[in-house]
């Protein structure tokens, strides 16, 4: 009697391509595909999907970023293009995620700078790129137009669409050939609804990445963890409106008390461990892209993912 994992999945996770090579009209080193798979990571059946990829997050206004990271990285944080180049070369993530934190400043209006910043990052790095635009509906239209335009041909992943604030991101994705991150507040039904709204606006299924919102460890992480498992589960049971790859980023991790108030000597390690335990768990829950901010998280995270999925990452 062989003991085996029982799996009765009928659905499959969709695939999304991020990045375009020179041949395809872009300038990225690779066009990576995320998602796919017809099983839970390791719940057997056929291929569990590709191994999760690691995205390194950085920004254009370091004043609105964790001091732990800005201290660690040094002056390079003041030049987004240079930071992108350094991150690619030194930290070696699979993707870069560029936050336009400048747009969060009160009364922000420098939209031409938005376009230029995205262009600079694209020029100075070759990794597939995720671009996070504004979070204020009042400037969404202009911001996402510039982001979309600047990245035309590069198959960016644009963030972030939410219920009530998704049209500009969707428009930029459709006009300039990018994909969209669809975020919901840790609620499976709302995630599904947003995907339906995006589809009705014209964004096809293979250009949507679900972000169920990841609370920091100790600050709601378990809700996110279960939301990810439930989304994956529903997708595998045949729910097409949830069958998209997921992205997980516990952006509050470096701001929480346990990390902020750790002894200065331990603070860096605290940040890394906090991110590591969170990202490993998210990967197991089904996230296709896990994001980190502290550079030192990447090496141990990659070892863990490689060990779980195998280095070449097709699973079984």
């Amino acid at each position, binding site marked *: *009697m*062989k*003991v*085996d*994992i*029982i799996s009765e999945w009928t659905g499959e996770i969709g695939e999304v391509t991020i990045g375009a090579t020179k041949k395809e009209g872009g300038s990225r080193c690779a066009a990576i595909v995320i998602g796919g798979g017809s099983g839970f*990571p*390791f*719940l*057997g059946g056929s291929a569990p999907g590709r191994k999760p990829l690691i995205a390194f997050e950085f920004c254009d206004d370091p004043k609105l970023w964790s001091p732990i990271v800005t201290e660690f990285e040094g002056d390079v944080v003041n030049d987004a293009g240079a930071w992108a180049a350094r991150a690619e070369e030194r930290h070696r993530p699979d993707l870069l995620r560029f936050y336009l934190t400048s747009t969060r400043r009160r009364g922000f209006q420098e939209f031409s700078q938005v376009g230029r910043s995205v262009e600079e990052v694209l020029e100075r790095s070759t990794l597939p790129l995720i671009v996070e635009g504004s979070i204020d509906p009042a400037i969404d239209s202009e911001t996402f137009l510039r982001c979309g335009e600047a990245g035309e041909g590069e198959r960016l992943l644009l963030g972030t669409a939410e219920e009530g604030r998704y049209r500009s991101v969707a428009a930029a994705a459709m006009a300039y050939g990018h994909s969209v991150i669809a975020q919901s507040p840790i609620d499976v039904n709302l995630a599904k609804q947003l995907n339906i709204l995006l589809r009705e606006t014209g964004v096809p299924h293979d250009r949507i990445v679900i972000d169920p919102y990841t*609370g920091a*460890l*100790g*600050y*709601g*992480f*378990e*809700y996110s*963890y*279960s939301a990810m*498992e*439930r989304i994956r*589960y529903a997708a595998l049971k045949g729910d097409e409106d949830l069958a998209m790859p997921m992205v997980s980023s516990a952006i*509050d991790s470096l*701001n*929480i008390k*346990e990390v902020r108030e*750790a002894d200065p000597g*331990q603070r860096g*390690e*605290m940040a*890394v*461990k*906090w991110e*590591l*335990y*969170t990202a*490993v*768990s998210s990967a*197991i*829950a089904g996230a296709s892209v896990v994001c980190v901010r502290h550079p030192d998280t990447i090496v*141990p*995270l990659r*070892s*863990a993912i490689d*060990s*779980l*999925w*195998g280095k070449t990452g097709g699973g079984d």
Partner: protein
Amino acid sequence: MALKALDIYKLLPKKNCKECGEPTCLTFAMKLAAGKADIEKCPYLDEEASRILGASTKPPIQRVKIGVGERSFAVGDEFVQFRHEKTFNHQPGILVAVSDLWPDDRIQDVVREVRDGVLVRIGTDLRLDGIAIRCESGSAEEFSRAVAAVEAKADLPEVLMAADPEVMEAGLSVCGAFRPLIYAATDENYQGMCALAGKFGCPLTIRAESLESLAKLSALAAKEGAPALLIDPSATTLSDYIKKATAIRQNAVSKTVPDLGYPIFFDTTVTGMQDAALALGVDKYASVLVCDRLSIPSRNALLTLRQNIYTDPQKPIQMNPGIYRVGEPVRDSPVFLSVNFSLTYFTLQGYLEASGVPCYMLVVDTEGYSVLTAVAGGKLNETLVAESIKKTGLESEVDHRTLIIPGYAAPLSGKIEDESGWKVLVGPRDAAGVAEFLEKEWKK
């Protein structure tokens, strides 16, 4: 397949004799269906019913207690594959390994750390659980010395790790009365190990390479009289562990392979990537985790992850109601009303801290419900708020009488004013808006 309450009831004697401790057979049947009762308690069960019910009403994963006293812990008693299906019941015990090749003081440094180390989160003390003593010397004498060194410093649950039953016995002679976990019985030595487990009344871990041999071995061990079992699928890589652990959990809860219905043991030190292995173990079904000494950051992240994953999804973690300070508030600092759902509290607190304005948080007891739920369900109401103001002595902390309430509690604003006599300002619906709110509304 798990039987439903009604099906179980049909097999019971239906005398309502109450001898099982339940008022009616139906109640007993419901508890059996939930795995929360022991079928043995019914004295009037016929043989057929006993056979059918015996198998199907046992909890899918045996409950095993390790250690004695304050720091002892129980594992097992799990029913689901995913925590969102209901909840995980017993968090894994984390035991730090020491070797019998080490001198006493090195061993005792580790013991002290585990004994005293604590992370306080949401009013709970989070600690590591015990010590794993590894026999690397091969000597019964060294092994018992090491065990004694541990015993001398703390009353912590232990795992005794030795392949030779004689060495194991030596260790047990030191601490056997304190229900340590014996590691491990294999095809080669299980008779000896089971005898020890029976003799000392200790839980026993069995280890095998494949799941099939684990199942066989557990059946044998149970027959040999081992009172409680854990199983170690001998994973040396993360990938190996997760596949085996998932198969075990799935086959156990579906009762497809009842011989795998035991808690899982995972020695993370063999993987070479301890943090990831520990995270994996916590997320996926480990009941006992053995690791090497942890740095404070690793320990804190691990304990927090464990607390999170093992929180019952249907029972939100609650804060103690009362007055909480953000920064150093003074007598004219703003007062924010909030509920005692920990997530709400922490979210609001985070944004208040980020705003840079010192203030008070008046946290009221809504039994852990969030603002929206508490308002809809009537748990957050004017009486509660007025009473809380009185009980906490808020009026002696601040000179003003203005309360800022969450945006979603707006429908209560008038009633709160009437009941408490305080003025109410309605704040933003989203906590992220508090900084702007304070800027615009409070300053004027």
